């Protein structure tokens, strides 16, 4: 009995400690407050929240401008300015801590054009990028796109790679792109950088990288039904047999 009691309290203690992130912070627990301005209107919010959670604290329920909440999906691009500064900054609402005197607005959607193509039929050279994105030739190298990127990608550099037809370098530089669209929204030349990066990376993956030989061999083996008999046996095996096979596994060397 005594043991069970401990277990229950462990779960309760874990739940209690997690309350700030599962059901929201309690006002009485807040030690430090800051003032933020959501589309111009001031709200007093706890200092250790992100822009996203601070807006929720203030009473906003998101249906736009929110997605994974962990910096992977690019739904919560936000433009802000700090009090006393003239500079507009960009960031992800879910990954940026609020600061006192922050003026902010979310940009949850970019009305950018996405060209239609079939990568199986396109030539692996610079012409494919110029055909679908002729506007890249208008890049004035102002670097505003790179400055806007919440992933700190050297966006302008990969657009230059696109102009040179350097797919490998383009893929490497643009790889961490989460397609939030902030680069395109800031670009004076109307380039949709993240779509250029997408086509470039797919072309490099399809034509620049070779499909591994061991994969090709395995596909042929599957087509020849090489593993069917073994799997027939496993599929029908008793639990006891499977337990035995599981225990007998030999771990590959590190």
């Amino acid at each position: 009995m005594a043991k069970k009691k401990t277990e229950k309290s462990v779960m309760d203690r874990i739940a209690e400690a997690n309350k700030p992130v599962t059901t929201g912070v309690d006002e009485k627990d807040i030690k430090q407050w800051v003032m933020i301005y959501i589309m111009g209107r001031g709200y007093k919010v706890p200092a250790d929240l992100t822009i996203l959670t601070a807006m929720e604290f203030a009473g906003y329920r998101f249906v736009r401008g929110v997605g994974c909440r962990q910096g992977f999906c690019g739904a919560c691009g936000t433009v802000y300015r700090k009090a006393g500064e003239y500079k507009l900054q960009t960031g992800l609402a879910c990954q940026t801590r609020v600061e006192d005197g922050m003026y902010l607005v979310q940009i949850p959607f970019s009305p950018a054009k996405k060209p239609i193509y079939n990568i199986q039929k396109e030539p692996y050279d610079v012409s494919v990028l110029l055909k679908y994105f002729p506007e890249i030739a208008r890049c004035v190298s102002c670097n505003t796109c790179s400055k806007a990127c919440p992933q700190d990608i050297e966006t302008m550099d990969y657009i230059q790679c696109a102009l040179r037809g350097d797919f490998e370098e383009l893929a490497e530089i643009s790889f961490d792109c989460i397609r939030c669209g902030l680069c395109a929204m800031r670009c004076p030349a109307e380039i949709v950088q993240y779509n250029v990066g997408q086509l470039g990376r797919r072309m490099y993956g399809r034509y620049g990288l070779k499909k591994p030989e061991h994969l090709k061999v395995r596909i042929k083996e599957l087509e020849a039904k090489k593993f069917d008999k073994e799997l027939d046996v496993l599929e029908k095996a008793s639990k006891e047999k499977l337990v035995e096979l599981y225990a007998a596994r030999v771990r590959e060397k590190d």
Partner: protein
Amino acid sequence: MAEKYIEGYPEYMYKLIQKVHKTRSKRKDYVPEAMTPEEREDVLQYHPDFAKGGKRKLKIGVNKGDIAPDEVVDLIEAYPLIGKKDVDLSRVDYSPEILIIGGGLAGTSAAIWANMMGVKAEKILLTNKLRHGDANSIMAEGGTQAADRENDSPAKHFIDTIGGGHFTNKPDVVRALVSDAPVIMDWLCDLGALLDQEDNGEFVEKWGGGTSIKRMHSCADYTGLEELRVIKDEFENRQIPVIEHYPVIELLTDGNKVTGAVLWNLETGEYKIVKSKVVIMATGGFGRLHIRGFPTTNHYGATYDGVVLSYHAGAKLIDTDTVQYHPTGAAYPVQIIGFLLTEKLRSSGAQPVNIDGNSFVFPLEPRDVEASAIIKECYVKNKGVNTPTGLRGVWLDTPLIEVKNGEGYIDKAFPGMKRMYERFGIDMVKNPVLIFPTLHYQNGGVEIDPWSRTSVEGLYAAGEVAGGIHGKNRLMGNSTLGTMVFGRRAGIDAAKFVKKTKSWGKLTLNHVDKYVKMLKDAKIKTDRRAPIILPEYRGKAALARMIDVF
């Protein structure tokens, strides 16, 4: 505040980190041994699934008597959002042959494969609760399993998977998973996905917890992001119709088989009626239910909608009693509590370490075992580190990764992780990070067969919403794999099904009437309604003064 911070940590935590630095060289070549089956059994008593309380039996429906977490039962035993009186089913807005609900890896793959099998793009419709691509898929960091090396085989993958699931997985479904895995890798290569390769042109393949062979493929620590953005781009090029911010609030049936769905505009509140021959449910999992009060790695929209809707329509569920807690969620700083730290960190050499600087568990146990060992270390052995917000955690010794793999490795292999910590002033190359288990995955779900078919005609399920694949515990790298394998299979089989099915079924909400009657017969009195669509995180003070006047 007066609190002094050093390298992103409060001073007292920074002092404790020095113990981790001190023991590193000793731990480099010493790792605790993997547990025996008996030791695993013993430590699992600390797993939230087995700890007392927090769950109960389902009182109604096909799975009556099965056990599930309270948060899940609360949604099953809740009244539907709409009834016959609320909607006009005579005016149909869309009539695709195949309706896909959810645009993560599973739903998007299903659409592409249905199209490749000859279903015209305009005969497919993909609907999303938020944006197309807003899904847990995009947050998958570590990788995708596939047995494609000479020393590996689908059979070895099968045994690892079914053993990891405690022999409760459906064998025929596991067979589909492991046999198709190399096919999926081949498809990803053809689509131009950038899978990590060694200098010799082979795939980089790493350990996953609970596997006997290194077969985890990755795209740095943005695996799901790369897979999804490539597959979504392919989907867009095929010009398959898609609607966003339109969650499904109820399925439609002819009384038995599924014949369509009611969509609801998240911004305007207007509903739309869809008539279809097939519905593919690909709505993901339930992390946002915060089961047992745990934080989650999951997407904002992971609220169990797909299972609730399928259950209304009479679909059978499986393995509702287990939940996957990822061993390594962030425990500090507060802004990232519960966020995922990929298992690949441990397969690259990072070790869990306690407050004294000692390692206490083999780093690559199956997830339920590893998570239990961490909970035990923190709350039973009291060897955890307390954070300023009251959470406990243990260290994940990330600097050890570079000791083992060379300088600069973290930058190359974990750009996403490194960036996340840098945003909060922490350098994971130099210092360890604090972790605690976090709610990660819905092991069970709507039961499927090897072709993603559910027990209800016209209803398929793929991805996390589907059950049977992983049994009672999923292995790393089998989730992204499962989404694409069963998404593809759903698309292929649905294409065959719509070709041979000439007639369209009647649109009714009779199943909802039946469901409400079941609730009443079981004397379930509640004002709970489901699906919930989105979680509630608004501030309590603001909510308390909100009034509805407009």
